[in-house]
């Protein structure tokens, strides 16, 4: 996809070694993040996030549903990512499907926890209205509009921004007399409950190029990666999910080191993101 000459590759790798990347960033520095909320008025919440030339849109739609039998105390959340051909011609036709799937699954792993929903970064139990009867189903759809590396982190950031833009209508549920009877649901048009996003983690992807690893890689830098570790870290510094990609094997101690770096970087990034979200919400109103 990104073709670099031998000379450029060496320059890029040399820069990472010397802690001065091609655009002047250090290894652990993010590009500046730009957030805009409420971009899809038809959705319950939405946001557009730009990280350099990477641009993604996330939207949240909420529907009333029934909790699954296995987990009557949890709502349901599903994440779908789509890569628009506007980002690159290769995403046309079925070209983007593999990448879309990879990103969707990685996001689900990092944000939603396992099948049981245990350890989920989004509080699923807050979505339940009546245990075993009524809950919110959140559909998170994201779209990659323009791509210049680090899609996963931008998508996670966009989802977080969209969630904080989300207002769930207040619902009154009147249970029937007998358990078989269907409960009556009254959805308020006026009252909305803000979604609590303080626990939603940020994903930090560390891309290993040569001996060192960098955050927020551009697509040129990603073309030189030998492996990457994506760590989702919440505000309290807890790790909520982890994905390793790329063929090259990593020494376990290196992985631990990368995780601790990710944890460290996430603090700065989360606070930057939060202030951007707050600014976007303020200008949106």
């Amino acid at each position, binding site marked *: 996809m990104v073709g670099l000459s031998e000379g450029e590759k060496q320059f890029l790798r040399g820069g990472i070694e*010397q802690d001065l990347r091609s655009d002047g960033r250090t290894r652990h520095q993010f590009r500046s993040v730009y957030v805009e909320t409420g971009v899809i008025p038809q959705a319950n919440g939405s946001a557009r996030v730009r990280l350099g030339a990477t641009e993604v849109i996330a939207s949240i739609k909420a529907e009333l549903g029934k909790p699954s039998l296995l987990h009557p105390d949890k709502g349901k959340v599903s994440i779908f990512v789509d890569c628009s051909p506007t980002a690159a011609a290769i995403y046309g036709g079925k070209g983007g499907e593999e990448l879309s799937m990879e990103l969707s699954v990685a996001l689900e792993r990092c944000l939603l926890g396992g099948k049981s929903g245990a350890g989920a970064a989004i509080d699923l139990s807050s979505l339940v209205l009546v245990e075993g009867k009524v809950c919110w189903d959140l559909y998170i759809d994201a779209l990659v509009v323009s791509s210049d590396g680090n899609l996963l982190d931008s998508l996670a950031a966009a989802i977080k921004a969209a969630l904080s833009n989300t207002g769930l209508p207040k619902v009154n549920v009147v249970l029937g007399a007998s358990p078989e009877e269907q409960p009556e649901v009254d959805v308020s048009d006026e009252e909305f409950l803000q979604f609590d996003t303080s626990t939603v983690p940020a994903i930090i992807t560390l891309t290993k190029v040569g001996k060192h690893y960098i955050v927020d890689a551009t697509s040129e830098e990603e073309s030189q990666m030998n492996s990457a570790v994506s760590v989702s870290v919440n505000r309290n510094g807890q790790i909520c999910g982890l994905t390793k990609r790329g063929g090259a094997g990593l020494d376990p101690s290196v992985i631990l080191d990368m995780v601790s770096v990710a944890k460290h970087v996430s603090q700065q990034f989360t606070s930057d993101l939060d202030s951007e979200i707050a600014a976007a919400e303020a200008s949106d109103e």
Partner: protein
Amino acid sequence: MRDLHLSLNQTQRVRLQAALDQLESYAASTAAAAASVTVADSIPVNHEDNILKGHGTSDLDGQVVATLCGVVERVNKLVYVRALRSRYKPEVGDIIVGRVIEIAPKRWRLEINFSQDAVLMLSSMNLPDGIQRRRTAVDELNMRSIFVENDVICAEVRGFQHDGSLQLQARSQKYGKLEKGQLLTVPPYLVKRRKQHFHHLDQYNVDLIVGCNGFVWVGEHVETSEKESTLLSDKPSGKQETDNSVPLETRRHICRIANAVRLLSVIGLTLTVESVTETVEASLRSNIEINEMLGSEFYVQTVEREAQRRASMVRKRS
């Protein structure tokens, strides 16, 4: 119109708007502003003049109509539309930077931001041994030792062939492979054709090549004679192993210059060696970190500086 994706605070927003308004007011006083057209606009002409219709114009019921967005230019009888944003329009003699995408028999094909790939024939470039002679089958087999796929090279536009393909040539020591640096792409309309497109920025030990096609190369300075010797040595890979690192000091300069180019291109200011070095110096003067050059504060400062520069130009003229 082009959305600025930077978070500006209130004062920055006001300052930026003021500077942009100033730029606009200077432009409004020039003829170019009045001559801006969009697709399908009629261009007023005096038909008695036997005008010649050039690029970006077409004939519709006797009217001259623009087929591009841009600025109407008139040279004697010729009327044409100078496009702004578009792909590169080659002219013979242009110096360009391109990327090899394919090695075909006796030729390399290059991506140069044109509507088709350009062709560099083996016979259109100096051989490594520097001797003028017929190209042999052995030379053809050795093409890979000169350029391989993805190599960034610098060449000159030779012209169009009968079949409509664009031919390049590289018949001088200054042309050839570019290494140890980074390639940036900017919209070609920001690059003006000038006498010089190779710049050796002595104080920074950096080479800046502003290709007419909008590909800009920023790399460590290479002595032309040295380049010759690397071309002469049959095993260039062996040499690269020995010194492949760019000194940190030079790398700082390369990145700073590259970010200056990025910034100017995002704002949409003309790219010349002067505007680039001026931006670099301004960033050094105000102690801006290299990556901060892409931030909002320096963006606003750069627009303000441009407005001041044009103000002083206007004052000088009057």
